[in-house]
């Protein structure tokens, strides 16, 4: 396997700036890798035919002495939920097959402006509904650590792409854990920013009060570098915060020094006992807490009594909002239309939505329609919104005592493809630890904590911080990452099995 694809984005950016590697070489190396392994992994739904042109343009501009951004020339994979003008955008659904957007999502436009080279669009659960990518209308993605297992979801394609060295950087979206849980099961890094920290303009909406776009990478520094490119106010997104943000790459570099852990108060949630997790996951989590403690952090037990209602509230709020957002797929203005040889617009619409949406999407639309219907609204949707308040209060109380909260990123390591597909409720419970952050709008990051001793698969640790304190997560995440990589003698992904083809 080529050395170029093993580089982190930060390392590759340095070599590009120094002229040791061209963007065309870097892009070609990743395209070769995709050609070699993506038949097995299926991280990509579409590979960008113009990637080399974009790379050549960056090389020309650099040669001409133009001042380029810090990661210009680095290839980027884009989750298919983000619309792009030069590649189809399907959000993993048949109803949008072949859809070509007349505009770029803001995060894509900013990535292009920063000189990143879009390699292609990554696979995902249909409309980001799922935790395994098995709900993609285009077939599942396979976990590079074990091709029989799920890569997480909904952003399994982005996580698998960076884990399989098909891209150094990827964009994801996180509505209930779709960036962080795939990071957990693939031994990679995933960051969900503060709600409003990154523009959602051009992100095909799932649940508007929960969705957030963020970076998917192999290192905390790389996540910070990408976050710096995509973050900040966007007048096209009315929920976009107007805050001035610090450099998250700088925060990661500062954190890697390790001093940030001295005196850091790390909250551990009493209501998430080890018994709720696979033994190997709980063990890896505890070992990471020991490392934090050894570097001067203080572990403090906190109480978040309403977290246990988070999944229930989420599966009312999300379907309710999704059923509204997905009403736009009406067979009139874009997307699929079933030809009924007559029938009214409504007949065609209903037949199209039956044919174009997959099982999970229909399930959630019907559930959301139920939760919002007269007679049930107060009991279900109204109550879920109150739980949201209670979970926010849990966070407020906790952050009065601690600087960050730590949890395992998900209850288990990667499960087998097909294992939970027939049991939607079991699939939903997979998001237990990630959902509270979306309900409260706070940022969360998942970084690799090691391999589970019981099955040898990757485990992630999640850190949560108060809203707007994203930089704190980069400092703490980078500090723990540095300590762990040091103890392992190299990155966790060095221990991933070799994929077929390129060696």
């Amino acid at each position, binding site marked *: 396997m080529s050395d170029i694809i093993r580089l982190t984005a930060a390392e590759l950016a340095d070599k590009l700036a120094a002229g040791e590697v061209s963007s065309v070489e870097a892009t070609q190396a990743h395209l070769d890798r995709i050609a070699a392994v993506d038949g097995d992994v299926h991280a990509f739904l579409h590979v960008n035919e113009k990637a080399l042109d974009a790379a050549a343009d960056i090389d020309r501009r650099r040669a001409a002495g133009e001042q380029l951004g810090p990661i210009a020339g680095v290839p980027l994979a884009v989750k298919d939920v983000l619309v792009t003008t030069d590649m189809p955008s399907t959000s993993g659904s048949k109803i949008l097959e072949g859809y070509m957007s007349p505009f770029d999502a803001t995060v894509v436009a900013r990535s292009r402006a920063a000189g990143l080279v879009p390699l292609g669009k990554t696979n995902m659960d249909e409309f980001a509904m799922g935790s395994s990518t098995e709900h993609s209308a285009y077939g599942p993605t396979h976990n590079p650590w074990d091709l029989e297992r799920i890569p997480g979801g909904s952003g399994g394609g982005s996580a698998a792409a960076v884990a399989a060295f098909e891209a150094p950087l990827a964009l994801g979206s996180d509505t209930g854990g779709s960036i962080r849980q795939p990071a957990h099961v693939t031994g990679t890094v995933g960051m969900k920013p503060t709600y409003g920290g990154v523009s959602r303009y051009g992100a095909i909406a799932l649940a508007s009060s929960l969705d957030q776009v963020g970076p998917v990478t192999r290192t905390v520094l790389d996540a910070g570098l990408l976050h710096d490119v995509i973050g900040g106010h966007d007048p096209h997104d009315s*929920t976009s915060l107007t805050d001035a943000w610090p450099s998250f790459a700088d925060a990661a570099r500062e954190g890697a020094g390790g001093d940030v852990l001295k005196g850091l108060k790390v909250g551990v949630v009493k209501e998430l006992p080890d018994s709720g997790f696979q033994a190997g996951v709980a063990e890896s989590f505890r070992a990471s807490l020991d490392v934090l403690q050894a570097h001067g952090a203080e572990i403090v037990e906190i109480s978040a009594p309403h977290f246990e*209602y988070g999944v229930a509230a989420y599966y009312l709020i999300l379907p309710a909002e999704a059923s509204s957002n997905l009403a736009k797929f009406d067979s009139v203005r874009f*997307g699929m239309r079933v030809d009924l040889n007559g029938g009214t617009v409504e007949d065609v619409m*209903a*037949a199209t939505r039956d044919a174009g949406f997959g099982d999970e999407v229909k399930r959630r639309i019907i*559930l959301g329609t139920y939760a919002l219907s007269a007679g049930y609204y107060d009991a279900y949707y109204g109550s879920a*919104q*109150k739980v949201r308040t209670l979970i926010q209060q849990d966070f407020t109380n906790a952050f009065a005592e601690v600087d960050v909260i730590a949890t395992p990123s998900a209850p288990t390591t990667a499960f087998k493809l097909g294992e939970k597909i027939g049991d939607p409720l079991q699939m939903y419970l997979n998001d237990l630890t990630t959902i509270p952050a979306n309900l*409260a709008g706070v940022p969360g990051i998942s970084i690799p904590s090691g391999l589970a001793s019981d099955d040898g698969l990757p485990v992630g640790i999640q850190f949560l911080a108060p809203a707007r304190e994203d930089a704190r997560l980069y400092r703490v995440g980078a500090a723990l990452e540095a300590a762990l990589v040091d103890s392992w003698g190299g990155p966790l992904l060095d221990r991933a099995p070799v994929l077929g083809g390129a060696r």
Partner: protein
Amino acid sequence: MVSEITPDLVRHLGVLARIRLSDDEVERLTGQLDVIVDNIAKVSQVATPDVAATSHPIALQNVFRPDEVGQTLTHEQALQNAPDAADGRFRVTAILGEEQ
């Protein structure tokens, strides 16, 4: 709260959501939704009257932009993904059925 998911209710929800569900789908969804609703109904245990509802994770005021023409799609762009179009407009089948 006792869940009351019945096949008739699911079929009705399908009509409201504009999804023409087959009988098989109705049967499958009825069983699945029953289990899911039983589980998520527990939100009412802690959602007491004294708790305020939160609709949005970070409080925001209405956001307005200046009332000026900004970026807009051209006719061609607006129609480029239309399943059917004619004379610069979206074309659809009959708006009203015979009984209307």
